[in-house]
């Protein structure tokens, strides 16, 4: 699909048209805090703030999601029943709940969208595991309209792990701010459908060469602003080799073992399942949980494999850069930097990876070379180019020869 142009003051009309058939969610600033909230006519979308406090993952992967409702009751006895059939028996009625309203998330960043793709693999039955109908129903009903980052923060590192401020992964349509409006590219059939629906309310003209060129320059400039703090090459092997290193204790000393990093992350997905029951009706729900919770792995016997904070700390980074790539085909991080921004003691994932992701747990003396000036996406719609430094595939190169994924 050709690149379109949307005037800035036509954005509300576009969102209004989309809101006719879907819930539209976008970042809004309220009392100085920017969060993804349902769009309402008259509210201005906040695009000057790079990242909303939280990622939009909770729109697809709900923080609290009831998926079973049940009630205990007595089975009805047939008239004239005798003997065993006349004795009252308990029964339980169980209903599966799965609500997936159509929704459009506008204004997320490519790192947020990439987070969805990384979660898709977990919930999508990839690798012969189970398919999660709860997540997938919402995911299929959700269209992601991302906005290119113009001014990455010092805490961003998307390009270090194969992403890009104008990345395409997970994005249905990409909006890039240019003079007076947006250059708009549909990247998937869902994106095309959304733009077609939006065009009922707002005019989407063909972009001029100048607008197309400006968008390309914006993307390129943004990509160059992102620092590359570590080399992906060998990270997984080094994490494996450093598993028992003392360095984990040092890095975890200022960690307070809360769950902030996992909850603001666009792709952390660990959850718990609990039942609640009042008298004879109740429900079963899943809710976000985090591996820093001291009780996360505590067994009923009282034994806790990750009683030590440094083990829990190690587990999160291991999960994102070793365990997850072993099972699925990318890293579990999109380089948004929210964990760094919001951690109460500013634990820095880049520092952790530079240290424990390097041989012998020693950070490299030399700064890492900046990636070649290629953007992960091109404006003309040609195939995405190779990811920058250190990675041929989205994940670190696998060790060869072992079915289990880890060499002895």
């Amino acid at each position, binding site marked *: 699909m050709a690149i379109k142009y949307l005037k800035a003051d036509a954005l509300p009309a576009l969102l209004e048209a989309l809101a006719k058939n879907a819930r539209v969610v976008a970042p809004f600033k309220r009392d100085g805090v920017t969060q993804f909230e349902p769009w309402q006519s008259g509210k201005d979308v906040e695009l000057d703030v790079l990242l909303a406090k939280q990622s939009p993952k909770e729109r697809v992967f709900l923080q609290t999601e009831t998926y079973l409702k049940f009630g*205990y009751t007595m089975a009805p006895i047939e008239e004239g029943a005798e003997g065993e059939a006349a004795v009252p028996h308990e029964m339980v009625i169980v209903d*599966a709940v799965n609500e997936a309203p159509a929704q459009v998330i506008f204004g997320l960043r490519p790192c947020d969208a990439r987070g969805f793709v990384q979660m898709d693999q977990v919930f999508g039955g990839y690798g012969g595991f*189970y398919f999660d109908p709860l997540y997938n129903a919402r995911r299929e009903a959700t269209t992601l309209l991302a906005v290119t980052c113009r001014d990455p923060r010092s805490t961003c590192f998307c390009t270090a792990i194969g992403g890009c401020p104008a990345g395409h992964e997970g994005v249905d349509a990409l909006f890039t701010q240019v003079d007076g409006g947006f250059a708009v590219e549909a990247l998937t059939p869902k994106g095309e459908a959304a733009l077609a629906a939006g065009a009922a309310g707002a005019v989407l003209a063909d972009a001029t060469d100048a607008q197309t060129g400006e968008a390309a320059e914006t993307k390129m400039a943004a990509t160059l602003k992102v620092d590359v703090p570590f080399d992906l090459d060998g990270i997984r092997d080094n994490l494996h080799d450093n598993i028992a290193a003392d360095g984990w204790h040092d890095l975890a000393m200022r960690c307070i073992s809360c769950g902030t990093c996992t909850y603001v992350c666009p792709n952390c997905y660990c959850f718990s399942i609990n039942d609640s029951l009042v008298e004879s009706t109740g429900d079963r729900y899943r809710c976000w949980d985090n591996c820093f919770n001291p009780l*996360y792995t505590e067994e009923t016997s009282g*034994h806790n494999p990750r009683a030590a904070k440094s083990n829990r700390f190690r587990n999160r980074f291991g999960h994102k850069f*070793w365990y997850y790539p072993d099972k699925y*085909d990318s890293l579990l991080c999109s380089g948004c930097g929210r964990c760094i921004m919001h951690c109460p003691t500013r634990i820095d994932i880049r520092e952790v990876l530079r240290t424990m992701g390097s041989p012998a747990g020693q950070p490299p003396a030399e700064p890492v070379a900046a990636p070649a000036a290629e953007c992960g996406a091109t404006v003309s719609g040609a195939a995405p180019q190779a990811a920058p430094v250190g990675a041929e595939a989205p994940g670190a190169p696998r060790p060869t020869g072992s*079915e*289990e994924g880890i060499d*002895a």
Partner: protein
Amino acid sequence: MPDTMSGTVNGKTRLTLADVVPGASTARAGKLGGNPYLPEIATVVQIIPETPSIKTFRMRFDDPAVQEKFSFAPGQVGQFGVFGVGESTFAITSRPSEKEFIQFSVMKAGEITKAIHNLSEGDKVGIRAPMGCGFPVEAWKGKKILYVMGGIGSAALKATIEYTLEHRADYAGISILYGATAPQNFTYQYDIDDWQKRSDIDLTLTIDRECDGWQCDVGMVPAVLERMNPDPAETIAITCGPPIMIKFALMSFRKLGFTDEQTYTTLEKRMKCGIGICGRCNVGPKYVCVDGPVFSLAELGELPDEL
């Protein structure tokens, strides 16, 4: 199990939902279909008190089609729970050839097992089974199998013991060493009676301390194991029991010359989804619920020390 270790799917290294789930809006059958969080409703048909803290529960699925189609591999587990309290993971302890019911043996320890122990015959429960990887009983054909278990560890090995006993001719030998703290604390006493009557297996029962009327061995399981001095040649060693017993039993196996490749155990972890998604039960890159719970010692050696 997963066929993705090559790193690509359909030649692509970066996936979208459509790659992962072909035809993503249509209903699917089989493993990629249905709702793996939705339990099957079953009725408790028999409760057998085994020891003061362990009961065995036999259930029939309410849906006869489910009951008929249900099958599992020895060593597989299931999520068994009470609606309103929660589910927990338990080894399936019925014989794999048993078609009339599914059986779990439960030790009372926390909130969920307490609620399970309060069940009566006729009560309704929820079951999601089978799950996990069982023991590689096919690959073990022709070998001697040595089961070493203590306490509730017998539940984890029960189905596999019964399977190999039913297929006795496939195996070069079967030895069972089962230890309990006291005579009344053995589970499956009714099955042990049958085992004792067989002449084609080696059965050693042991209790911790001398006791009037006890005619079998006395001593802790690892000590009795070393006294038995089993020959590691062409033998598979499997152990399960309280963590302290497993730890010393594994040390004894090593002392007796068993390699890590021929020694197996089952792991226990706090679990929630049981289907490899929620991210809780991992030891390093392995999920106990889908990659395990059965692991060889060689596999465990690759994992972080977080057992």
